[in-house]
């Protein structure tokens, strides 16, 4: 029965009908919603970079992990694995691109951040403001940066960017 109906249609199938059957959903709305806001310059909040061990522990955790679902170790105080809406919290996965003390399976798309304080801060080539801005939105200093954007797109909040900056500039064993 079904076949017969289809055969009946077949006699009328012209070019226009063939165009109709091509699956071609609209993606422009998805892309528009997914777009990244333009680069933004930030002012580092007061007391942002600290030597508070709790802040450094959070920064370390965000740096070395991808997201709440994939991470086995419990989250340090002040960080969650699952967000109130039930989705997993996305961390920085900075280690995918950067080596740093204790990194496991790191990548080398970005510079090695080991011994950052001695090499970059104490020598005066970098300061807290630079590190904060780089993590918040790396495009300001380098428009063609391959690095992830973390604050402008809401992936992280201000405090989390400060935690990361505190971790990077801390002295590690």
């Amino acid at each position: 029965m079904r076949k017969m109906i289809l055969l009946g249609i077949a006699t009328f199938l012209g070019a226009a009908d063939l165009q109709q059957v091509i699956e071609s959903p609209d993606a422009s709305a998805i892309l528009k919603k997914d777009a990244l806001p333009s680069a933004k310059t930030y002012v580092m909040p007061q007391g942002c970079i600290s030597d508070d061990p709790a802040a450094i522990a959070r920064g370390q955790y965000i740096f070395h992990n991808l997201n709440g679902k994939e991470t086995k170790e419990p989250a340090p105080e002040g960080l969650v694995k699952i967000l109130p809406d039930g989705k997993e919290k996305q961390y920085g996965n900075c280690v995918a691109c950067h080596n740093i003390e204790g990194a496991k399976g790191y990548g080398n798309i970005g510079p090695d951040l080991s011994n950052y304080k001695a090499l970059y801060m104490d020598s005066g080539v970098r300061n807290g403001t630079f590190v904060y801005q780089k993590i918040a939105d790396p495009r300001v200093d380098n428009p063609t940066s391959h690095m992830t954007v973390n604050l402008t797109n809401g992936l992280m909040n201000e405090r989390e960017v400060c935690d990361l900056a505190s971790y990077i500039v801390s002295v590690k064993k």
Partner: protein
Amino acid sequence: MRTLSICAALLSVALCGALNAEEKLSMSDADKKMYAELVDNNPAEMDVAEGEQLFSAAIGTEAYAKMVGVKEKDLPAYIAGFPRYVEAAKRVVTLSQTIQMAMADRSQAVPKLESKEMLKMTTYLKSLANEQKTNIDVKANKAMKEMMALGQDVFEQRRGGRGLSCNSCHSADIVGQRLRMQPLPDLGASVTAAAGTWPAYRMTKSETTLLDKRFQQCMDNALLAKIPLGSKEMVALEVYITNKTKGNAIQVPGVKR
């Protein structure tokens, strides 16, 4: 045929256990061995065989050639030029989309781009172009030029949860560097030959995968919103990436990590 299917089943069990944990690291020696075995005994060959059956029963190369407007004997070279502008479609389409048209033309139910039948038929149809060189012509007409430009835009557009673009990981200045130990492939290099080696069996997913589906996997991993198969932007991305490998010989189905 039978030994192939048993092998595939065994392999996928082994892969599920062993590979998921290691996915973000580059290949261990055990993975390398498994990869070599897959190259010798590619489970995707089964999809080619099944795709041939489905395609021959529903369409056949003669009717397909007629629908797209070429001589049957010219099909291999023609297939090596996708995505391309097809007159009956009045736009640039992928190989899978022409199968949708051919199915309708033969009064058959039109399979979805996401379906297993489509995966199998596309893999088979592309394999007819084996040994041909990919010969996409991005300057052939206005439609192709537009799609090439759109494809580059989509490739370079930073978006998603981490503000990354395809270019963040696949731009010429960083290919070969490592993302979590994983070397970043040069999509145009002859060792990768992205356009000529997909559809491929993906070891880490234990399944045959189409090129546009592979794009979606990168989108997922990098937190870019997934754009749907068949959308203008997705076809454009395939045009752009295929053009990077223009001239490389087609060897389908491939095997990928």
